[in-house]
């Protein structure tokens, strides 16, 4: 337990991604099973422990110390879990000869019933060190908030075993804590765990933006073009009766789309865009789609109003046959045939866009036939389906205006009707060398969102505040966590007044990218390239 507690303490104060990876891999290397696997599960959010409410924690501590001294302490520290971990009275008689392991702590917490949970927690706190108490409280109150995403933890595993992260992602949903067979494989002591579980995630293939001069070097005949739909990228997997809908980072989002799940009655892995509406009638906008996102549960009314469907553009597997090694042309043929067998109100095919040369495609890109289209995709006819973001086989070519995916950094309270809302947003993009990227502010926007979105952002700001300076709050924004805002703007000027060297014309929030990891927001070079063009 102490080593886990120490790991948490270090991670929360280590800003650099590489530093975090070193701490994680060292921990996984030096700590034995099952503790390390349980730690991994705690970090990725896969450890289930019945939650203890903050009020219960407060009650427990007040039973043990003077309430006035507790109040002074809490006022000073400001964080309940930390305060309790520090002030919890401990007599030397309580200190056991051997510090409890993480496995022992987890076992006791998991075995506790709802009624004796607080008592079990109190006994554990009696026997733990200060750091361990903090870690235990974090485990039972839910959410470690240590600035480590599940993806970063998986990267650390990949580093530990010298394998590619996509191998871990592929296995992940078939494994369970404490991941003993996974560690054995990574340490070379056992075979790679077989994919025994059904309907696992396949790492997705990503595109790179079309840069200046890129197209001149390419032959249009080598590429297929498709519309780029403004939804969210999903992977629908059905295997042996198990149905899962994954986001592009491999998170299982099935729970939010029960209506769509009912139509997943096939045996295949499909790649496509999740949209709302009726594919035969009308495709909803991204803001319509947002009615369905970030919900733990979804009411029948919302499901009816905004039915989800998938616009398919690739097929990775049909039955037992892995299609990823096939070229895009062949996969496309299989996909076209396969989609015909699916419920047409829930699945359709992303149509190919006919074009003869880049100029013609440019015309189409500028005047797309539907507002939910945000550009075109280019896919090499002869490319296999590759995990990650290889440059060359897939390009995205977005329509105007310019948009940039920036990360929310500061929020300021508005005035008048908005005086109780954090409604003015300063956002930034990444700069600096790989491994020590920093956000540099590039602009400020205060419109472009609906009232409902304003409420959502306001809540996000309040929940993720790091510092307050009068009416301004700085929000958590780093490689691991942050709210990505897609900012649309009409042009870019050079600026000597701004640290970033650029000033946006007419910036507005074009949408909220709740689905996009902060680390994948744009870099300053993307904007600088615009300046130079």
């Amino acid at each position, binding site marked *: 337990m102490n080593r886990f507690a*120490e790991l948490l*303490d*270090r991670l*929360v*104060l*280590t*800003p650099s991604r590489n*530093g975090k990876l*070193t*701490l994680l891999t*060292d921990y996984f290397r030096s700590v034995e099973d099952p503790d390390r696997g349980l730690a991994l599960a705690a970090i990725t959010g896969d450890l289930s422990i019945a939650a203890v409410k903050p009020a219960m924690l407060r009650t427990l501590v007040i039973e043990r*110390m*003077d309430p*006035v*001294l*507790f109040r*002074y*302490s809490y006022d*000073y*520290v*400001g*964080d309940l879990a*930390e*305060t309790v971990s*520090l*002030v919890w009275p401990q007599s030397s008689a309580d200190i056991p000869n051997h510090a409890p392991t993480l496995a022992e702590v987890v076992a006791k917490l998991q075995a506790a019933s709802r009624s004796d949970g607080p008592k079990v927690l109190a006994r554990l706190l009696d026997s733990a060190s*200060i750091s361990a108490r903090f870690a235990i409280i974090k485990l039972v109150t839910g959410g470690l908030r240590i600035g480590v995403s599940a993806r970063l933890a998986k990267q650390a595993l990949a580093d530990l075993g010298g394998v590619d992260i996509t191998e871990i992602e592929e296995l992940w949903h078939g494994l369970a804590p404490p991941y003993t067979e996974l560690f054995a494989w990574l340490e070379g002591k056992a075979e790679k765990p077989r994919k025994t579980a059904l309907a696992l995630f396949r790492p997705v293939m990503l595109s790179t933006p079309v840069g200046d001069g890129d197209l001149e070097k390419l032959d249009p005949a080598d590429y297929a073009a498709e519309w780029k739909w403004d939804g969210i990228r999903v992977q629908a997997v059905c295997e042996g009766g198990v149905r899962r809908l994954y986001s592009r980072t491999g998170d299982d989002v099935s729970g939010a789309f029960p209506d769509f799940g009912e139509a997943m009655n096939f045996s295949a892995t499909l790649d496509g865009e999740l949209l709302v509406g009726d594919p035969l009638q009308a495709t909803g906008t991204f803001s319509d789609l947002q009615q369905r996102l970030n919900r733990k549960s979804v009411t029948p009314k919302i499901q009816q109003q905004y039915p989800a469907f998938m616009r398919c553009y690739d097929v990775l597997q049909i039955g037992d046959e892995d299609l990823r090694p096939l070229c895009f042309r062949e996969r496309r043929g299989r996909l076209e045939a396969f989609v015909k067998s699916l419920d047409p109100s829930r699945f359709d095919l992303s149509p190919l866009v006919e074009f003869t040369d880049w100029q013609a495609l440019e015309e189409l890109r500028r005047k797309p036939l539907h507002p939910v289209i945000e550009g075109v995709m280019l896919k090499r006819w002869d490319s296999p389906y590759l995990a990650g973001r290889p440059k060359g086989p897939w390009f995205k070519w977005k329509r105007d205006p310019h948009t940039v995916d920036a990360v929310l950094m500061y929020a300021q309270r508005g005035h008048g009707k908005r005086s109780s809302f954090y409604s003015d947003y300063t956002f930034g993009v990444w700069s600096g060398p790989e491994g020590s990227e920093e956000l540099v502010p590039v602009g400020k926007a205060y419109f472009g969102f609906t009232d409902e979105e304003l409420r959502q952002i306001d809540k996000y700001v309040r929940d993720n505040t790091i*510092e307050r300076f009068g009416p301004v709050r700085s929000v958590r924004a780093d490689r691991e966590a942050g709210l990505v805002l897609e900012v649309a703007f009409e042009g870019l000027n050079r600026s000597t007044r701004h640290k970033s060297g650029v000033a946006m014309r007419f910036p507005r929030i074009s949408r909220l990218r709740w689905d996009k990891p902060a680390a994948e927001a744009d870099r300053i070079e993307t904007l600088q390239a615009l300046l130079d063009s």
Partner: protein
Amino acid sequence: MQQASRAAISDYLGAMRASDLLHPRPEGLYCPPGDFFIDPVRPVSRALITHGHSDHARSGHRSVLATQQTLDIMGLRYGEGFAGTTQAAVLGEAIALNGVSVTFHPAGHVLGSAQIAVEHQGTCIVASGDYKRQGDATCEPFEPIKCDVFITEATFGLPVFRHPPDTEEIGRLLKSAAQFPERSHLIGAYALGKAQRVMRLLRDAGYDRPIYIHGALAKLSDYYQSQGIDLGMLEPATVESSGKDDFTGAIVVGPPSAFADRWARRFPDPISCFASGWMRIRQRAKQGGVELPLIISDHADWDELTATIKETGAEEIWVTHGREEALVRWCELEGIAARPLHLVGYEDEGD
């Protein structure tokens, strides 16, 4: 009931001689019968100094009475003419000042630090200055002195402050140095006391590579070494003496302010560490950009403060700089009379 006991205390305060023997004045804590001040913050005629930290030991007094080591340290910091005359106090030996007996006892805070026991007509007050109870190889350990009134600091006077053993903290530092051998570890530590204690702890933990130090630490560290406190090989952390690569894997000690300075740019991808009792609070570490907080303090933590108050057997506690409120509350719960002294001019943040 509470009101009645409050009234009793204030009657007692009004009648007692303790506040005639020592009481706060704008210059500092004053003893009218002895005509001297303890740790005055402005120049006075006669000053008794508990230890060499600059908020307690100021220059410009007509005469100064302190331990020899504190006098030496003041000389190093302010130059030889820091006071009109000086007198060295020997630990445990009483000195009469206008009929008031004063005795210096070790405080365990930094080298040369002392508590001052003031006795007159059967009343004994101990002004403890800053103190700690955890072991420290760089100074004499604190001695509890039986007294009627104990004057305590309250820098860490909240139940949240619980300092871990310093050896554990140094263990974490050495572990990090092994984990990140390509980076340097910069330790912020106050120039008098903390810096030397950290160096000594490193040596006691078996660290035998040179320790690089900021120029501000040189004179005081040399002085510690001259007093028989072995700090091992210390090298100036200057660019002239070494290129950037030479600081790879190095442990560098400097005053905390230096790390926000351009001075720190010479180190490769440094991990910023800070040795202080404040590092117990995560948000303090976070706000200061500290990656590796080392909870090493030269002040008593909550458990040390409360244990010490009991050990002195004092009937009354006067609380000086820090978080007085909570310590006074604790005394109340324990049935010990206590009040804050509200002395001005002392840093309640330094550690």
